[in-house]
């Protein structure tokens, strides 16, 4: 008994010590972190890359754009990721952190993603302006030149020509890149262009969503939002175009500023609520991690129209 326990303890200790020393990662695998919006595209590329080349399959984590940049910029070496995905360009603060740690991020723009304001297929298709969407979801609105609490209860309160239906919107959580982009492209944009507010002003009063019940925060799971929209015809949801594309039998995207969301309108940027998507490669790891440059090139080769990424909802650069 004693002997057995002794050997076992030794074995466990030995494994822990040796593995801990010898490797921080199985050295020949590309490690990718970052945006949950780019995640589905990145995984498609990774799978094809692994199945069509001799390189090992990359490991991809969906950490969100901000979380990914933090991990990516924390250092050089096998314990740090090689690629980070981003649903916005890297912020200057993030770039500074990278530079401080001796990292050169190489930017690759892969295409666009539209953000849709959708409702159930069974309901009427709405045609809205950015301002009307802003008035429906923002915590603060403008009234006679002053910033006041939002009191619009129904869509017809905002614009008499809209139906007399209670405002009920499912919004993504603050941790999501979709939420960031929506706030920037719809809410900040309205305050900046229409109300001529200064940057400090619109950041302060046009960033928060309503908390009086008209806007509900949904989880990160976009499928759940689709189910909820299908169940309640008066409800709207905010999510990326790729989910609309997969669920066109259940939901429809509202027309925004006169343009309906589609592959074509997002690509030629006539649909205004869209954002570019990126991935960043750690230059210092190229040549150290096998297949890293090949992966980047392979990714870019798939960002053309007619590729499987387009079928998954990525809108290629025109």
């Amino acid at each position, binding site marked *: *008994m*004693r002997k057995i*326990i002794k050997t*076992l*303890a030794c074995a*466990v200790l030995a*494994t*822990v010590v040796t*593995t*801990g020393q010898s*490797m*921080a*990662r*199985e050295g020949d*695998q590309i*490690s990718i972190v970052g945006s949950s919006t780019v*995640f*589905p595209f*990145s*995984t*498609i590329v*990774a*799978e094809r890359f*692994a*199945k*069509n*080349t*001799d390189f*090992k*399959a990359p*490991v*991809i*984590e*969906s950490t969100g754009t901000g979380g990914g940049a933090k991990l990516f910029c924390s250092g050089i070496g096998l*314990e740090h990721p090689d690629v980070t995905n981003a649903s916005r360009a890297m912020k200057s603060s993030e770039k500074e952190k990278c530079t401080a740690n001796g990292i050169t991020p190489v930017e690759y723009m892969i295409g666009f993603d539209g953000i849709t304001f959708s409702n159930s*297929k069974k309901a009427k298709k709405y045609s809205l302006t950015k301002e009307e969407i802003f008035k429906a979801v923002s915590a603060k609105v403008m009234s006679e030149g002053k910033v006041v609490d939002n009191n619009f209860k129904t869509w017809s309160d905002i614009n008499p020509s809209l139906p007399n239906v209670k405002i009920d919107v499912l919004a993504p959580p603050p941790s999501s890149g979709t939420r960031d982009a929506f706030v920037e492209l719809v809410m900040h944009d309205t305050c900046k262009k229409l109300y001529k507010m200064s940057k400090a002003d619109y950041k302060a009063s046009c960033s928060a969503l309503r908390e009086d019940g008209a806007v509900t925060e949904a989880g*990160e*799971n*976009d*499928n759940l939002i689709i189910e909820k929209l299908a169940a309640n015809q008066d409800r709207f949801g905010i999510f990326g175009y*790729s*989910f609309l*594309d*997969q*669920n*066109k*039998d259940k939901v429809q995207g509202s027309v925004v500023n006169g343009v309906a969301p589609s592959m074509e309108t997002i690509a030629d940027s006539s649909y205004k609520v869209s954002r570019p998507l990126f991935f960043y490669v750690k230059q210092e790891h190229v040549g150290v991690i096998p297949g890293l440059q090949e992966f980047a090139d392979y990714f870019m080769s798939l960002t053309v129209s*007619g590729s*499987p990424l387009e*079928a*998954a*909802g990525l809108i290629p650069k025109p």
Partner: protein
Amino acid sequence: MIRKNIRSRRARETRLKIYGISSICFALIMLATLLISIGLNGYSALQQAYFKVDISVNTEKFVDERDFLNNKKMNLFNWDGLVQSALREFFPEVKERDEKKELFAIISANAGYDLKEIVKKKALGSGSHTLSVWLHLSDDADQYLKGRLSIDIPEEDRRINNKQIAWVNSLVERDIAKLKFNKAFFTSADSREPESAGILGSVVGSALTLFVTVMFALPLAIMASIYLEYFAKPGRITDFIEVNINNLAAVPSIVFGLLGLSVFLSTFGLPRSAPLVGGLVLGLMTLPTIIIASRASIRSIPPSIREAALGLGASKMQAAMHHVLPLAAPGILTGTIIGMAQALGETAPLLMIGMVAFIIDIPTTFTSSATAMPVQIYMWSDSAERAFYERSSLAILFLVAFLISMNLLAVILRKKFEKKW
């Protein structure tokens, strides 16, 4: 007077009984509803749509000097093209580029790769061969054949158009497309194409992780509980340790993930996404549960057994190791298995240490990248493709079955080895 009292007491008793029965019924109905609804969503994932093609391959291009198939040479070959041209033979009328693209969309994007793997597995010698193989149809065609896509809505809103439906139907009529057992689900790891996605990768990942968990937590828990029961002197410090163990059992699991990130990954530099780290984190998480169960089990051994051993001259250690521990083993095992079942269902602590990731390879060692079963379910339920919906339901059923069998094992072990005094 007395009779009235008795009657009201009996009535109260009956009411209590009714309350009890109805609450059990309620719980059972809820459980049944849950399982049935998941089952109804998931059972169809046991089947997958396949189509049969006869393909002639000339392996001369792939073999090296020793007549072995060469991986590099095989990777360079256009396998997709081979499958696509075989498919086109069924529909010679398809000529235009756009139409061809629509036609190829009814078969799996991985069909070429699957064919390559089949050829590799058969280890064909040099020469030309004709193979009759069953390959996956695409997830949309699969969902259509299972009746999970409604086709009474306008064509442009559908994932599958009228032409594609006609092609699929024509394949079915010719008996070269049908639903067969979904083998890939049980034999492959994750994929972005629902038709090639499977749970084996995450099952192996879970198994490796749980192995580390047991190896780490069980010895520690047994040592700790023996010490606390037999050696520790009652006092402030012992009380403090005891309170903390009980508190630790109630700490939210994500906290252990953060601990794993800062200690195992940052300080010790262990690999990210590895079952080794996952096992250690889950081991720490289940440690208090196992300690509490082990102590209860050790305490339930009649003191007379230990005293008799001590009286006959055994040392404290001999009494504990030779007499108490074997008798307490069933209880300790039960506690361990319940702790393991809890660890099996956790995703939150794994999130921080990078095990919530898309991983295509089936893990082979304790340091290769891996995920776990609940993580796989979470990731599938988050995917846009409709066919992942039924697959995640089936994976849930699989996980529940796994948990039930673990708990069953705990019950059987207890029944078998339990001693009554």
